[in-house]
């Protein structure tokens, strides 16, 4: 039972982060192949420790993106001689990144528009 509850919790978070997390993962991988642990660290570091990606969201996202053909995966050895699964952007992934960025920017500007309506004072 407890197990089930937790699973539901993660699922909800996937739901919430979906799209955004995809964008973050794709963006992170723009700089080169990386494994799941590295991606999580990169997102945390680049967001100034604000965005912490739950593994329960990250791994499903990685596998989903791989399934969609946006990521390619291969096994490599890290500098510390650890075997790890590296993900990199595919050509389709690069296109997807561009379109997601685009959409994100639209959303941001739309939200900004709502928060700071230009004609608020006059109307």
């Amino acid at each position, binding site marked *: 039972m407890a197990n089930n509850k937790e699973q539901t919790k993660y699922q909800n978070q996937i739901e919430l982060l979906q799209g955004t997390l995809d964008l973050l993962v794709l963006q992170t991988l723009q700089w080169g192949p990386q494994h799941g642990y590295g991606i999580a660290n990169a997102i945390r570091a680049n967001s100034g420790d604000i965005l912490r990606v739950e*593994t*329960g969201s990250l791994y499903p996202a990685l596998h989903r993106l791989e*399934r969609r053909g946006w990521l390619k995966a291969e096994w490599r050895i890290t500098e510390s001689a650890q075997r790890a699964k590296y993900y990199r952007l595919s050509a389709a992934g690069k296109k997807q990144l561009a379109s997601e960025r685009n959409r994100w920017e639209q959303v941001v500007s739309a939200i900004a528009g709502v928060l700071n309506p230009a004609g608020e004072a006059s109307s």
Partner: protein
Amino acid sequence: MMNPFRSRRREAELDEEIESHLKMAERDRVERGQRDNEAHDEARREFGNVGVVKEVTREIWGWGSLEKLGQDLRYAARTLVKNKAFTAVAVLSIALGVGANTAIFSVINAVMLKSLPVKNPQELVVVGSTTSVGSVSQGGPRKDLYSNQFFQKFRERQQMFSDVYATGRSEALNVSRQRENGQDASNPGDTRGRFVSGNFFEMLGVRALIGRTITPEDDRVAGGSPVTVMGYGYWERDFARDPSIVGKNLVINGSSFTVIGVTPREFFGDIVGRPTDLWFPLTMQAQANPGHDYAKDSSTSWLLMMGRLKPDVSMKQAEAGVNVIAPGIFTELFRPTQSPEDLAAIVKQHVPVSGGARGFSRLRASFSGPLLMLMGIVGLILLICCANVANLQLARAVSRGREMGLRVALGAGRPRLIRQLLTESFALSLVGGAAGLILAAWGSRLLIRLVSGDGPLQLEPRLDVWVLIFTAGISIVAGLLFGLAPAWRATRMDVVSSLKESKSGQADGFTRAFGKMLIVAQIVFSLIVVVAAGLFIRTLRNLENVDVGYRRAGLLLVRVDPPGAGYNDATINELARGLIEKLQAVPGVEGVSVSENGLFSGTNSASDAKVEGHPPTGADDQQNDSDRVGPNYFAVTGSPILEGRGFGLQDNESTPKVAVVNERFARYYFPSANPLGRHITFNSDGSDGKPPVPFEIVGVVRDVKELDLREPVARRFYTPYLQHQEFDPLYSANLEIRTNMPSAALSKAVRQAIHEFNASLPIWSVETADELIDDTLVQEHMIAKLSSFFGALALILAAIGIYGVMSYITARRTAEIGIRLALGAERSSVMGMVLKDTLQLVAVGLLVGVFASVLTAKLFAGTLFGLGVFDPVTISVAAGVITVAATLAAYWPALRAARVSPTVALRYE
């Protein structure tokens, strides 16, 4: 994805991926200065629940299509098991529909589609007739049936085929097995023999199961090789599969034959529907059929021919090739006996060539039409079944609204739900189809028994690949038919309202309209089937009541084989007189006569004759049916003499030659004059050197049906039996016996009397006129029986459908009915309301159905007799029956509606 190995590998990769994540996190922590075990624990804490992460990640992979199907099937099975009543009714419906279709199809497959169980059947080509398996014809040549002489020349000269074999019919075979202690007679007359050329088995690639088959060596010298090969069925039936039969002798029609082998079980011969019991070399025909030497000269046409195409020869080329050499052979064989004009006409005839893969069959031509008709009927029945199941599903779809709503709310997409519901339908149709297959295996046997008794159709409709494909195919189509609309309906919903909807659920407009549409459709289909059944039954009645022109009741017809007992031209009249005298003395016999062909014996003669006072006007002008009949023939059969007199004992060898003609003959040749006293002269080729003798017409007899109930009677003349002394090899004699006793009792006494007269005279048959006439109605009986059976089935299924829909609709209207009753409506008016609803649908269905049934009847108009495609009697009876059935079906739902208690009904909401 469906590969378990691949999915296991993916599982291992996921484990490793997570493991490496944890290790890297741990190492980082150690590098930052944490202690080993602290770093280990913290890395894991930060990661979270490994099991859950794995699980949610795995979800992303999704189910493979097969895994999904498995899941759907499990779910479907659970749902179906939970709703036992629904499942039982649905499966039964489908099983009936699919079973009926499979049964008919397996017979169609066996009769019309299946290839012979021989080597490369697709290379086989029939030259001439594919149907005349029992025919023999005496006189001029035929383009479709050949003499021994023709076959030998053809085989030598042809270049299109790697080889050609010939096969011919046999007269009745009387087989007895030689035993040390004498002879043990088996049933006379029901053993089916074929004569085949020596290359028959070799060409078909059939080897003996035990012993050997006939070889070209056995077919070299006339009468030189008394051997026979036995069919598996006969071996099993009469010899209990005794392997020691090989090498033993059988006495067949008085001559001894050695059994040299038995053929394998699957090889029934080259004739579909009539398995061969014994094969003999062509050269043994005269020995196995004493008195009937077909090979004597080229005037006896009796052989069918089958060739095997050379690899680079097409059917078209073969046909052209055959027609290049056939005229030459005809000319050589018939120049001595035929006039130049006749010869020219013969040579011009085109010899047909057709595919031989499916063998020869007399049945195929005559049963194809009826079988296709039955296929159409059972197709309609399947539609009725589908409508029933669709109705049930639809009703269930509405009550499952909440379940569907919940599943949509939980994130199931509509396509996924439709797929789920269709899986349920397919599960139903597969279970129903499997049950139908079992039903069919049993049903097709029953069908064949029902159709022909031990009669003409002897098949073993095995469940082969094609039947299985057919069954699977119609099951799937049926599943789609009854599953799609309900699935569409069930998933077309708006989540919120379906969850809010009360448990009872209102039948929405779609469901009601669709349900009603299905009822109308069922009425239409059942009307078509019931009307068809009615038309066939009335056709049969009309045929049975045809006035044949003589008294059918109390007439016994006996067929004997004088040449088989050594009688010849000189002694045949002695036999006729002796037999008549002997049989007259049998108690219960009122009169006896004899004839060459007689009534419904299956044989007929036609003669060219010049009629005095009538100059010939065309080719068919001189051709008339004819028969030779004995003293008192017309009195014994009960055909009224209209003018003049019939034949008596005085019309014999030593008195002037006389003839009796039928009405049609008299009207054709003497439209205004009196035929009595005029003369008929046979056209003779003059080959026997005797001048033709004229026969004086002394009487006119009523038109009599002698061959077929449907065909109009042809012009016919009769001459006295005792005034002829030359007979051909086809000759047999028919005795007509008038009696006032039950024929079963008499037939034994008659056999006994003939046996006493001459124990060696073969008796081919003793049957009543009614039996013989009825034998010609086998197909009509079959169609009438089967279509009535299917008509009843259609009616029952449609009634079940109406009952279901009306129950469902009235149950959904309980509240409304409750209000009506509370407001003071009479219970009888509530009942009337439900019945009226039903009858409205029935009326619409009948209206459409009448048009549809008339259009359908046009397809089989040719098989009807004495009525048209629009038969008011049949249609009104069918409509009446359907109305009654529908009313009965709606009666219980109506009664239940009328018994609704207003208070309960109102609380129900």
